[in-house]
């Protein structure tokens, strides 16, 4: 979002239009509902927990792998070809900001029509949805990693004749590792959030069989089995924590080698927090030795020559295929637009009149959650800025809080709050808050830690009080982090709305008027295609435009005004 890009202005608009048109082509809630009626549901019990955890983990892993492959391809293309970058970067940006959960019914429908109504199509739909929550920032990470390779390092590899496979292994892949890993942790947390959401959605009014922790959780609560729900939640948190300790943390330590420079302070902090690596290095060592042995046996130069020839052939073939491919794409677009128009043309249901009000109410709900989140996070970070120990503890809390998917708490919160404290309105705001606060806390803490110590000491030496230092230095210095955190938090919360405005609990539906509720009703209750399509369009357009008109500008302004150092 920072750098200047000379991208065509119309591109994001076309992308959004295409996405909506494709959804319109595919949206057929009636058929998805009909399919669901034929499914025999199995009621989960404690015995099913390990299997459910296994399924959830499998889904996550599959979509993560697909995301990494996609991210590599897109990031590499954007980093090496300026023309590709001009198209790809805005598309990735849009992908990042569109509330993908709204497209879930459409995704289910597409996979059911293409593959028939089996378990496989549901699995693929959910994997696809998780993918859409993971891929974008990974692609940006690859792009960033590749385009920040120092000029001379690149030239050095070239001057040594390092090409093709060898170049990929010794230069390009290592250069991406730190950014890719950092973003993998974010993506993985994001993925949990969406995985649980998918599994909960499919156990909404229209029920499918998608065994997993999320579906176990929500189904257990729907029939009031609190013990099973607590068990599922415990298993989920255990998995998240174990993965953090056994996989991500060792990887993070290992990835430090792939950076061009190491900040001394950061190193010290990480060692202070270090928990013994859980077995992973020992597990990986034989694998690595095997890999090394294989690599040594590959005749790199010969393969490279072959690959170069293949690339040339592919490029030539592409030149021939470019026009037919473009034509097919254009035809697809026209078809999409036509079906979009058809979906919109039908007689609009009476509820459509409520859409603007629903959108406004949803917006107000997010704003309320945002204010509530800031109300505790800003004082907390200011306090942390004076107490380094406290800051470390708080960032641990934020890390754990952010990595446990807030969606898992939705059913629990509902169970606790329903029929109490002002009912559904409060619940939906509370749900929005659970998803929102960690992003803000995480980013603000990062901002506080970047305030240079000598700057703070110079103000103290001038005799400024603690409050004055907060006002004059810490808060302004945190502005860029605040905006970054806000963008992510708002983006996540638009998604969360789809779950939080319409909740099924103990066979009863609790709902408040909002855009998320409209989407849900259209999908699972009335099956009204025009309404579904209208609310989806409205939601997507609002979010994308809000990002463009508010956050992007704010981000730029804040970065000019409040940047520390050069």
């Amino acid at each position, binding site marked *: 979002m920072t750098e200047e890009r000379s991208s065509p202005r119309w591109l994001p608009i076309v992308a959004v239009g295409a996405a909506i048109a494709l959804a319109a082509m595919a949206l057929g809630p009636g058929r998805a509902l009909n399919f669901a009626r034929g499914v025999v549901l199995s009621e989960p019990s404690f015995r099913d927990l390990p299997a459910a955890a296994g399924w959830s983990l499998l889904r996550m892993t599959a979509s993560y792998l697909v995301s990494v492959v996609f991210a590599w391809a897109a990031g590499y293309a954007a980093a090496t070809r300026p023309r590709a970058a001009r198209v790809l970067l805005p598309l990735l940006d849009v992908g990042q900001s569109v509330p993908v959960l709204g497209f879930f019914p459409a995704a289910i429908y597409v996979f059911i029509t293409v593959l028939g109504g089996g378990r496989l199509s549901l699995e693929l739909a959910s994997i696809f949805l998780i993918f859409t929550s993971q891929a974008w920032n990974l692609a940006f990470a690859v792009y960033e990693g590749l385009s920040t390779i120092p000029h001379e*390092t690149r*030239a050095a590899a*070239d001057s*040594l004749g390092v090409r093709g496979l060898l170049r990929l292994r010794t230069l390009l892949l290592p250069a991406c590792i730190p950014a890719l890993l950092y973003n993998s942790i974010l993506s993985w947390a994001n993925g949990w959030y969406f995985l649980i959401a998918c599994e909960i959605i499919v156990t909404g009014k229209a029920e499918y069989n998608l065994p997993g922790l999320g579906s176990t959780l929500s189904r257990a609560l729907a029939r009031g089995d609190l013990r099973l729900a607590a068990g599922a939640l415990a298993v989920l948190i255990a998995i998240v924590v174990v993965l953090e300790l056994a996989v991500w943390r060792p990887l993070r330590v290992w990835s430090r080698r792939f950076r061009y420079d190491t900040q001394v302070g950061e190193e010290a902090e990480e060692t202070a927090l270090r928990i013994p690596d859980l077995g992973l290095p020992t597990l990986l060592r034989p694998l690595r030795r095997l890999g090394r042995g294989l690599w040594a046996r590959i005749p790199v130069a010969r393969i490279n020559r072959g690959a170069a020839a293949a690339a040339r052939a592919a490029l030539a073939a592409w030149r021939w295929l470019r026009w037919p491919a473009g034509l097919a794409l254009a035809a697809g677009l026209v078809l999409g637009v036509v079906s979009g128009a058809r979906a919109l043309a039908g007689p609009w249901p009476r509820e459509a009149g409520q859409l603007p009000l629903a959108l406004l109410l949803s917006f107000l709900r997010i704003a309320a959650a945002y204010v509530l989140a800031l109300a505790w996070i800003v004082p907390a970070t200011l306090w942390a800025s004076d107490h380094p120990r406290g800051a470390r503890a708080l960032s641990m809390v934020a890390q754990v809080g952010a990595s446990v998917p807030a969606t898992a708490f939705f059913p629990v919160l509902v169970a606790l709050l329903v029929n109490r404290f002002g009912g559904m309105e409060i619940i939906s705001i509370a749900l929005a808050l659970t998803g929102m606060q960690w992003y803000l806390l995480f980013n603000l803490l990062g901002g506080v830690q970047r305030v240079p110590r000598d700057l703070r000491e110079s103000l103290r030496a001038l005799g400024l009080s603690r409050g004055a230092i907060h006002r004059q230095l810490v808060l302004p210095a945190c502005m860029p982090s605040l905006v970054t955190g806000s963008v992510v938090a708002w983006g996540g919360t638009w998604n969360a709305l789809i779950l939080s405005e319409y909740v099924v609990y103990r066979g009863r539906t609790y709902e408040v008027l909002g855009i998320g509720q409209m989407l849900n009703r259209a999908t699972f209750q009335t099956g009204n295609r025009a309404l579904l399509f209208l609310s989806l369009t409205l939601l997507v357009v609002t979010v994308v435009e809000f990002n463009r008109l508010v956050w992007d500008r704010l981000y730029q302004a804040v970065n000019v005004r409040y940047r520390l150092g050069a």
Partner: protein
Amino acid sequence: MRVLQLRHVSKSFVDRGRSIPVLDDITAQIPERQFVCIVGPSGCGKSTLLRIMMGLTPPTSGEVLYQDRPLDGVNLKAAMVFQSFALLPWLTVQANVELGLKARDLREEDSRKRAAFYLDKVGLDGYEEAYPTELSGGMKQRAGLARALAVEPELLFMDEPFAGLDALTSANLREEVLTLWSDQALPVNTVVMVTHIIEEAVLMADRVLVLNSHPGRLAADLEVQLPRPRNKRDEGFDALVDSIFEKIV
């Protein structure tokens, strides 16, 4: 014998639709066994010229001949040393030096032996398993030098190789580069070095190419006839430095 010839080489970059000339019509020859320095003010395109000679970037017009044949892409008979050392931080010193050998499909034990030989030559034996971040600037540049020498190039390019080092280290390394260059047992005997310090050029080179800027043109092509080993207090040293300085201004 001429190793490298530049014929009417020009280079311009496009920036926001405007073409900015960097090098303008440069014709020169690099004969075998010569130590050539390119000097000029910053921004005169001397590094760009070196990259064109190496084949890292093509000239906008004109041509580069290596052994009387036009250069097409990176010259694998040449090697380059960089100001920022440009070592890969995730590879050990040994692996960094072996990188160019891997690219040439050398057998693993051969490349290990050769890397060890050149690491010894530059005085880095014992540091094979170290990572670049653990080395001082001078040692990093030694590793960079070993990496370039290990591919046994006929031509060695150096882009301000001593600019990132402190005065004492760079003086030492300068001496060692001259020793390596005059070592008949090593294959490399033709060197082209870019520097912005005129004294350094006069101290090291057989010949100095002087560029001036906006756009970079060849202002002078001087032989340095002072006897080796040279010293800054040698007779005629200051006079030569002054005359080159005048040509740049």
